[in-house]
C-alpha cells in the first residue's frame, strides 16, 4: 500500500512531516554531502537577526547526560547578508524552506518579517520568539499579549505562512499558543530549548562562556511530549514538535500525541543522516498502525495508559 506522507498545517504544505530545526542544520550547505534534501519535508535554516551578531564567548556548548547545553548567541551575519548569500542557495533546494528570524524588539521582528515577506521561494517564516540566549532574560513568548501583537504585526507585513516558535520555559504554554493563534499564526513550533547550566566545581566556574544555556537532545523529549500534549488537547492550532527527536520511534510518538510535523535538531549533529533514515522508515511505521496516511495518525493518543 502507498502511504501518503503529506501534511498540511494552516497554509503550510510539506511533502512529509520531517523537517530539520533552526540552528542545527547550518544554512543547509554544510549538510549537502550528508543529506538528500529532496527527502526532507523542509529545512529551517539558522536564525537571522537585523544586524550581524558575533555570537557568545566560547565555550558555547557542553554535553550533559543525553543532552546538549548551548549558548551560541545567534552568531549570524544579519538579514541582508542572509537574503543575498544564503537564501538563493536555500530556495534552489528541492524542499520547503522556512526562514527563521529573531528580533531584539517588536519593531525589529516586523522589519525582519517584512524583508522575509518580500523574498521569493520561501514556504514560510518561523518567528523565534523564544531564544534563551539573546533577549536578556525576557522571552517574548512568555507574555500572551506581546506574542499576539508580534504575530499579528508580522502577519500584516509578511504574506508567507507564519510559525510561532515558543519557549518551554513557562509554567503554562497553552495561553501563549492561543495568543499565537489569535495573532494569525499558521502553526506553532514546540519548543525551543530549556534554560539550563553546567558547572565545573574544580575550577569553581560555569562551563559555558554565557554561564547559562539552552538544553536540547534526548534528555528533553519527555518534557516536550508533555507540552505538545497540553497544546494538542486544547485544540488551538497545528503543532510542529521539536525536542529530542532522533529516531523513527520518537517521530511516531510526537505524531500520535498531536504534532502534525516534527523538526529534528541536535540529532543532526550526532547522527547527521538520521532525518533521511527516518523518512525512509515512516511509511512502514504508519502502516503498522493500520493507517494509510500520516494525517490519520496525528493526535490519535488514547486517553487511558
Amino acid at each position, binding site marked *: 500500500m502507498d502511504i501518503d506522507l503529506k501534511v498540511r498545517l494552516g497554509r503550510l504544505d510539506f511533502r512529509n512531516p520531517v523537517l530539520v530545526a533552526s540552528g542545527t542544520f547550518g544554512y543547509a550547505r554544510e549538510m549537502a554531502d550528508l543529506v538528500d534534501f529532496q527527502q526532507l519535508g523542509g529545512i529551517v535554516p539558522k536564525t537571522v537577526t537585523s544586524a550581524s551578531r558575533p555570537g557568545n564567548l566560547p565555550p558555547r556548548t557542553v554535553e550533559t*547526560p543525553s543532552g546538549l547545553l548551548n549558548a551560541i548567541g545567534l552568531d549570524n551575519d544579519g538579514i541582508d547578508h542572509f537574503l543575498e548569500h544564503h537564501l538563493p542557495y536555500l530556495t534552489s533546494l528541492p524542499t520547503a524552506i522556512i526562514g527563521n528570524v529573531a528580533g531584539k524588539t517588536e519593531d525589529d521582528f516586523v522589519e525582519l518579517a517584512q524583508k522575509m515577506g518580500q523574498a521569493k521561494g520561501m514556504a514560510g517564516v518561523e518567528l523565534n520568539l523564544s531564544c534563551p540566549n539573546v533577549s536578556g532574560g525576557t522571552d517574548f513568548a512568555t507574555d500572551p499579549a506581546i506574542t499576539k501583537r508580534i504575530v499579528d504585526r508580522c502577519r500584516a507585513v509578511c504574506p508567507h505562512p507564519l510559525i510561532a516558535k515558543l519557549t518551554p520555559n513557562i509554567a503554562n504554554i497553552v495561553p501563549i499558543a492561543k495568543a499565537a493563534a489569535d495573532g494569525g499564526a499558521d502553526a506553532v513550533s514546540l519548543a525551543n530549548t530549556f534554560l539550563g547550566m553546567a558547572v565545573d566545581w574544580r575550577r569553581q566556574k560555569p562551563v559555558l562562556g554565557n554561564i547559562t544555556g539552552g538544553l536540547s537532545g*534526548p534528555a528533553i523529549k519527555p518534557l516536550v511530549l508533555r507540552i505538545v500534549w497540553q497544546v494538542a488537547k486544547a485544540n488551538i492550532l497545528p503543532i510542529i514538535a521539536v525536542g529530542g527527536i532522533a529516531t523513527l520511534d520518537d517521530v511516531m510518538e510526537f505524531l500520535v500525541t498531536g504534532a502534525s510535523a516534527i523538526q529534528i535538531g541536535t540529532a543532526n549533529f550526532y547522527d547527521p543522516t538520521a532525518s533521511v533514515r527516518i523518512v525512509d522508515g515512516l511509511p512502514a511505521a504508519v502502516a503498522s498502525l493500520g493507517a494509510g496516511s500520516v494525517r490519520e495518525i496525528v493526535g490519535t493518543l488514547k486517553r487511558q495508559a
Partner: protein
Amino acid sequence: MILQRPAVTVENVQLAERTFRIRLEQPEIARSIRPGQFLMLRIPETTDPLLGRPFALYDTVLDSGGEPVGLDVVYLVVGKMTTHLMAVKAGEPIEVWGPLGNGFPKFPNIDQVTCVAGGIGQTPFLAYVRELLGTRGYAGQPAVRQVNKVSLYYGVRSAGFAAGVEDFRQAGCDVRLASDDGTVGTKGFVTQLLAADKPAGPFVGCGPEPMLKALAKLTASWNASCHVSLETPMACGFGACFSCVTPVCTPAGRDYKRVCVEGPVFDAATLAWD
C-alpha cells in the same frame, strides 16, 4: 565528500600511558582523507555520551595491494567518551563521519618542515610526515617527495605518555623529545627545546593552547611561517552548530571562525591569541 558510516573495529591497542590506537575498517573514508583532516567518532546505540568527538587521522591503513582500507586514530583517555572508547573491542562498531576540516598545508620545494607537538598533539603528524617525505599518497594523490627533511619536536608530561615515537622514526622523521619531568628527552617545555635548537621552518604545531601560543610567539620572532592545528571542543564537526569557534583577527576587527570547517589548521598569524 563527507560520509557518515559505521566502521568495524579491527583492534584497539595501548601505546602509552592512557593512550590507545584504534584501527577502524572504513575504505571509503580512508580513500579520501588527507593529513591534518579529522574524523568524528561516536559510540553507537547510546545517548550518553551523546555527541561524536573529533580525532585527527593518525594514518590510513593499507591493504597488501597498497589500497587504503582503514583508519588509525590515536587517543588519550581524558573523559566520558574516550573512557568508553578504551573499552571497545575488535569486531565492535563505531560510528564515523569524515573526512573533515582543511588539512595541513603542502610545501613543495622546501628543504625542511618542523612539526611541534605537545600532549596528544603528535597524532596528526605521522601521516603528514609520510606525505611530505613522499612515502605515502593520500586522497587519491600519488606519493611525491615534497621536502628533504621533517623534524618532530614532541613534548610530553613524562616518559610514559610518549606515544608513537617509533612510528615517527620509522617514517623517516627526526624526533626530538622534551618532558616536563625530564624522564625522557630534555627537561622542560617543547618550545624551550625548540628555542634552543632553532631549527629551520616552516613550522606546524598541534597541542594545548598555551603551547601553541608560545610557539606562535617564538616563530613570529624568527619571522618564520607557522601553522597550528586547533583542538577546540566540537559538537558536529561539519559546520552546522557554530560551537567550535576561535577568535581571529580580520581587517574589520575580531571575528569568530568555525574551527571544523575553516580549520582545524590555521596560519598562526591570523589567530587572536589573547
